[in-house]
């Protein structure tokens, strides 16, 4: 039977190839979308429970006083507090997007046990005011090496004399989990602060966000309440969120992008389903005469049904396998292309398996329709259709 199926597929090489291609394309697209969604959400799902993020209760764009760092640290359950200032600078060109944050070198490392230094040393970074520490993703993408000076044009904090900020790469990190991305630049907040005070840079003083690392045995909910309560009476009220919640806020800033990605994926699948169905219905129609001959010879209805079902399955799974192969081939390239936006882009076995299952479902449903009509048509009716 398999031979008959393969011969039937080969009899219409172009049609089979086109259907297979569209399946391959759909599966490839689906894998990429799926991996992107998982990547976007992985920051949320892998968020640390013992890190809290503190921002102004008014808005993310209203800075908090610097003195809050010591106050936060004094709250029961908080082990360390660290400034986290979004810098929003541009490296050479706007299309080279990556995040930069001003942080406290003396508490940052304690807040992020995920941080693994792979080149240079954290101490060197802490000792150099103009030093910075970059993710290995940035080192790969832009070829930054230890000792390099990275010029960054300030947008929120433009230098008064014009020109770029200059940061020296002192260390390269690799995140141990996806709670942290591998494409961020961290620099010493003090460098920014001194420049602001000296009038070398424009921009607001203060700190956008504080990070609080809790004691291992602290209860995050209690600590959140305690921090919010501490600043209840000003000078500025704060809003404390868990890291997962903070990540979700970030995701929601993307608006409905994840939902849209999912919708696009669904629409593509739907279209492919009809393409496969169309192919299989055409195959079923032109196979009518053969169905009559087979049945007259004594082949059962189940046999003619299976020939069409198997044909559809072969078409779909072969297409899916090709698409999967392509998406795995593209994985590396996409990883660096998405580096600034998606923390961990990976065609996981879960994604691969999922798309194969969907291809099999499509193949089954698209094969059942012509298979059933072939099984149901009476032998003499089928024989009366001329090839």
């Amino acid at each position, binding site marked *: 039977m398999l031979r008959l199926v393969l011969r*039937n597929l080969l009899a219409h090489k172009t049609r089979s190839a086109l259907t297979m291609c569209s399946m391959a394309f759909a599966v490839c697209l689906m894998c990429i979308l799926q991996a992107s969604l998982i990547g976007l959400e992985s920051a949320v799902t892998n968020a640390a429970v013992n890190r809290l993020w503190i921002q102004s209760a008014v808005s993310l764009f209203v800075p908090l006083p610097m003195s809050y760092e010591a106050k936060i640290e004094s709250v029961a359950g908080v082990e360390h507090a660290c400034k986290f200032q979004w810098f929003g600078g541009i490296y050479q060109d706007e299309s080279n997007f990556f995040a930069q944050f001003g942080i406290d070198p003396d508490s940052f490392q304690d807040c992020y046990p995920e941080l693994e230094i792979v080149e240079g040393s954290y101490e060197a970074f802490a000792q150099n005011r103009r030093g910075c520490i970059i993710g290995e993703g940035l080192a790969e993408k832009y070829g930054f090496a230890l000792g390099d000076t990275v010029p960054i044009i300030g947008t929120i904090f433009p230098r008064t004399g014009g020109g770029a900020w200059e940061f020296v790469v002192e260390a390269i990190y690799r995140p141990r989990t996806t709670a942290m991305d591998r494409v961020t630049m961290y620099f010493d907040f003090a460098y920014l602060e001194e420049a602001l005070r000296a009038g070398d840079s424009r921009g607001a003083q203060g700190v956008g966000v504080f990070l609080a690392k809790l004691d291992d045995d602290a209860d995050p909910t209690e600590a959140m309440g305690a921090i919010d309560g501490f600043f209840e009476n000003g000078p500025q009220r704060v809003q404390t969120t868990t890291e997962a919640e903070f990540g979700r806020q970030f995701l929601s800033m993307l608006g409905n992008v994840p939902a849209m990605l999912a919708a696009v994926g669904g629409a593509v699948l739907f279209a492919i389903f009809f393409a496969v169905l169309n192919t299989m219905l055409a195959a079923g129609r032109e196979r009518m005469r053969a169905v009559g001959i087979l049945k007259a010879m004594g082949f059962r209805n189940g046999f003619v049904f299976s020939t069409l079902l198997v044909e559809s399955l072969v078409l779909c799974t072969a297409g899916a396998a090709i698409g999967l192969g392509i998406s795995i081939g593209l994985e590396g390239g996409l990883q660096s292309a998405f580096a600034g936006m998606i923390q961990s882009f990976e065609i996981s076995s879960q994604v691969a398996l999922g798309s194969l299952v969907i291809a099999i479902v499509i193949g089954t449903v698209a094969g059942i329709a012509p298979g059933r009509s072939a099984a149901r048509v009476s032998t003499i009716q089928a024989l009366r259709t001329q090839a």
Partner: protein
Amino acid sequence: MTENQIELRGVRRSYERGGERLDVLQGLDLTMATGSFHALMGPSGSGKTTLLNLIGGLDQPDAGEVFVCGEDLARLSNQELAQWRADHVGFVFQGFNLLPVLTARENVELPLQLTPLSRADRRAQAERALELVGLTERMTHKPSELSGGQEQRVAIARAIAMDPDLILADEPTGDLDRAAAEQVLELLGQLNRELGKTILMVTHDPAAAEHASHVVHLDKGRLESITKNPERVRSEA
């Protein structure tokens, strides 16, 4: 085995078409002895294919009895009929017979898949059948690479591959030129004489009917006449 391969009694078959009833067979009786070679003639639309379908167990009569190869076909379920066809009947259909995507040998091998034969045995048997119809050279050709006459001979090879008792051939020479037709008819005659196959062949061609032992005329839903062809009647000799 009964002496008569085919016995039809009072067979009726009508079709509904656009609310109109078309009585194709109107109380038809036919007896065919085992080992006979009948030619079935009649105008187009007279019900020749309909009759063949009933005898081959592809269709059921509205009324009447159909006994073929010792079996009352009305008593068989669809599944049993399929098995019965595989065991007893070889078909040569009107028009295209072969699956275009398979080679000649694969086409002949196809019905053998319904048997427990091994792959090698199926192949050997298909090759024997093709040898019998004189197409050993053309085994690996696709139908599109064969002439009309060769195609029909492959169809006959497929019909006899399962070693059936009965061969039903619907206008096997309809699309062939004289020489090719003669070859096919010789072949059928040979199967009848040498292998004892009972054959019912539809034809429009009186010259083709000459090869049969009996000629049956179908018109207006009944069998008009049965004439014997003395020099071809083997069983009565």
